[in-house]
């Protein structure tokens, strides 16, 4: 193998052309740097929130202060976060725009670069775009409204559907869960709220896009999806940020509630710039015969710690987690999934695929837990890791806690490099080493990409290509 061309390995350069543009900061309101009780109160006041939410935020703030930083994972990196250097709330426009024409020009440019309106015109059912902390554009297809589906941003939901929000908000992930969930609970802003009434079926995916623009900004969106009995929905989120030299923090909380017989699929393509700390808590409750899927792709960020979870609390519930990570130069993708079985006849699978290159590190971290009442559980976990060079690293940290006799649990993992025979075979058919490697990596990820809508899968393949360009050969 020829020596690598170091210049071409600067991923941020490529990222810069496509996603790394930065708009001039132009905010209606920008909270002071750092976090204090006063800032939490101010955020709530700015948003004209009901009293219970202000109290909830303040309580969460106290919990955030009392919780220690995690003592596991990449502690060196997490401890670099300086909570006093972050802007916790930035308000880019006055209110949410209903139609694309009402969105301010600079923000429109941003999303046009990201291709959002075009995507919507083509086939998307609804779009929420979150720019910094607030959702700025959002449209819901007529058909959804007819079915009684609510798809809006979280702040609007709190105003327009206060009862629903109050009933379900924070019931899946309480602020006590972990330090970053507490932080999000204290300063959250934006995110999506989806409510599907009984038997509502949304055939086209609902989409949201999140973007950080300001330096040292924090983005703390809060997403809540409630799928009532027999309903089904596919939700897709994507995220980007410009390449700013100072680190930014993204700490979201995502709660899914799948009632009896419902189906939720939640897809994430995380493509933050390489200076974003991405520390996200995602958890779903799957009730009787519900089916919850997390499809989680992690390409960007400096450090991602994200382990989407499903608690199977109803008989016959099912869960699939598909997690894909690509760790390049200076990145640590600490990802995986958790399945907690608390009811009989439940089943689940976790498939994890990771590629590490250019000194990147990817870790699979997972949990399978069964409680005694969860009889006849079936679980399968499969983790595959590819290491593309000897500067990179791959870890597997699975934990299985099996309490109960009638469980059938399997876990398998492998770590390898691209086989010389595979490369040789492709090169003997006229492919360059670079193309052959790309092809093998894309093939490795196929289980993931085939689960995505077409243009996302094209996008992902292109992103992988971008990340790998010129890295070999």
């Amino acid at each position, binding site marked *: 193998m020829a020596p690598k061309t170091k210049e071409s390995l600067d991923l941020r350069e490529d990222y810069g052309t496509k996603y790394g543009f930065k708009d001039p900061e132009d905010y209606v309101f920008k909270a002071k740097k750092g976090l204090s009780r006063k800032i939490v109160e101010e955020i709530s006041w700015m948003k004209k929130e009901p009293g219970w939410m202000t109290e909830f935020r303040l309580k969460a703030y106290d919990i955030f202060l009392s919780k220690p930083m995690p003592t596991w994972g990449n502690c060196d990196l997490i401890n670099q976060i300086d909570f006093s250097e972050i802007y916790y709330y930035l308000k880019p426009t006055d209110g949410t725009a209903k139609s694309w024409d009402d969105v301010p020009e600079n923000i429109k440019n941003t999303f046009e670069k990201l291709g959002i309106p075009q995507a919507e015109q083509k086939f998307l059912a609804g779009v929420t775009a979150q720019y910094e902390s607030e959702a700025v554009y959002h449209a819901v297809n007529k058909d959804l409204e007819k079915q009684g589906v609510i798809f809006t941003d979280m702040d609007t939901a709190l105003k327009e559907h206060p009862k629903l929000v109050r009933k379900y908000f924070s019931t899946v992930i309480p602020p006590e869960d972990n330090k970053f969930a507490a932080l999000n609970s204290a300063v959250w802003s934006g995110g999506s709220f989806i409510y599907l009434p009984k038997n509502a079926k949304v055939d086209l995916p609902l989409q949201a896009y999140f973007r950080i623009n300001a330096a040292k900004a924090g983005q703390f969106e809060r997403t809540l999806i409630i799928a009532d009995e027999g309903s089904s929905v596919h939700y897709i989120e994507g995220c980007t940020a410009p390449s700013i030299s100072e680190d930014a923090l993204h700490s979201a909380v995502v709660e899914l509630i799948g009632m009896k017989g419902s189906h939720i699929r939640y897809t994430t393509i995380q493509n933050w710039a390489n200076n974003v700390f991405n520390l996200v808590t995602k958890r779903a409750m799957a009730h009787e015969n519900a089916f919850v899927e997390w499809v989680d792709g992690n390409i960007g960020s400096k450090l991602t710690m994200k382990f989407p979870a499903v608690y199977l609390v109803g008989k016959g519930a099912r869960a699939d987690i598909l997690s894909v990570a690509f760790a390049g130069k200076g990145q640590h993708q600490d990802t995986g999934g958790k399945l907690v079985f608390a009811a009989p006849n439940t089943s689940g699978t976790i498939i994890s695929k990771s590629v590490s290159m250019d000194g990147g590190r990817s870790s699979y971290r997972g949990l399978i837990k069964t409680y005694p009442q969860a009889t006849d559980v079936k679980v399968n976990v499969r983790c595959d890791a590819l290491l593309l060079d000897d500067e990179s690293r791959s870890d597997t940290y699975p934990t*299985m806690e*099996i309490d109960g006799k009638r469980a059938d649990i399997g876990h398998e993992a492998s770590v390898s490099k691209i086989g010389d025979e595979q490369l040789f075979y492709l090169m003997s058919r006229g492919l360059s080493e670079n193309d052959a490697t790309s092809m093998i990596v894309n093939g490795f990820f196929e289980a993931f990409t085939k689960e995505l809508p077409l243009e996302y899968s094209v996008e992902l393949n292109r992103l992988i290509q971008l990340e790998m360009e010129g890295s070999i050969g």
Partner: protein
Amino acid sequence: MTTATLDVWREESLKTLEKTADPANIVETWRRMPFQHWGLDRFSAENAAGPKVTLEGGAGAEVLTLEEAVAAKESFVLPTLKTGLVSSDFLKFESVSIAAWSGGAFVHVPKGKKIEEPIRISFEHDGSKTFQLPRVVVFLEEGAEATIVEEHLGDASASLAFTRIELAQNASLRYFYTQELPKDAVHFSHQHVALGKDARLDHNSIIMGAQHHKSELEVLLNGRGAQSDLRGVLFGSEDQFFDPHTHQLHRASNTMSDMHFRVALRDKARSIYTGLIRIEKDAVDCEAYQQNKNLLLSDGARADSTPVLEILPDRVACKHGSTAGPVDKNQLFYLAARGIPPAEAAEMLVMGFFEPILERLPFEDMRERLRAVVAAGAQI
């Protein structure tokens, strides 16, 4: 048994023990099995004693009690007390052991010597003292070969056993560690094996006894071409609680390691197996394998499994697998179709789960004794 140097070390260790705080229960090592089970706050040198040591076999090798070995070759034996502790989580245990160990064994096989007769180190724990602190030191010189059994039996107490093994180039060791203490004992075992170039280790753990059992088996593949093969079986019943750890640490190229750990649990017994394969950056072309199987024979039994991989170089082939579940219904059906009732069939399957390791034991009486323990436990 003591010498001037040892006295100083014992003093120092007592001080370290006093200075060191108990590890916090949020530390992963102690999260599920609290450190307090060992009751080290009650420790004093007066209520510690070695187990009764019986040594047999090993014609041609130097087989001594550790006390004899310290007297005969202090400068060679003493440093082994301080080798091999990589984790500060066990600093207090190590300090207690150095401060007050007694009862131990020493095996030394000279260069090129192949010892045919298996060596048996039998520790009979003494219930009249609160703490039992045995130690084993094994050194195989270049090209030497031996088979060693370390067995723990006897009365209930809190025991901390430390084993230090060094295998020089091309040396080959087959080692058995068996733990059959009463079900009200608490036991900790720390075994550290360092392998030189092309050395080979075949290690077998048989874990059946004690109320609380915690073990650390660290295998360091330090020399190019070293190979290790680790096997473990664990059988638990009633409210026994086991916390076995294995570490396959690849620190040189072309090293190979394999690990199979089998657990069967009934009643309210619990096991939390943790295994680590770590391949260091400079260790290329390594192969590592790790498999943990858990058989749950009762509704109340609980098995946790955390097989961890940390892989730094790219030229590796590494796999691991872990399963947990009840006795395979298809196998029961197959045996039922041949007229074997389910209870008997389950017993046969459990015996079959353990037999590959039990049959390797070099002493007939141990094989029979352990088979009887498994057979009695497998009746449901």
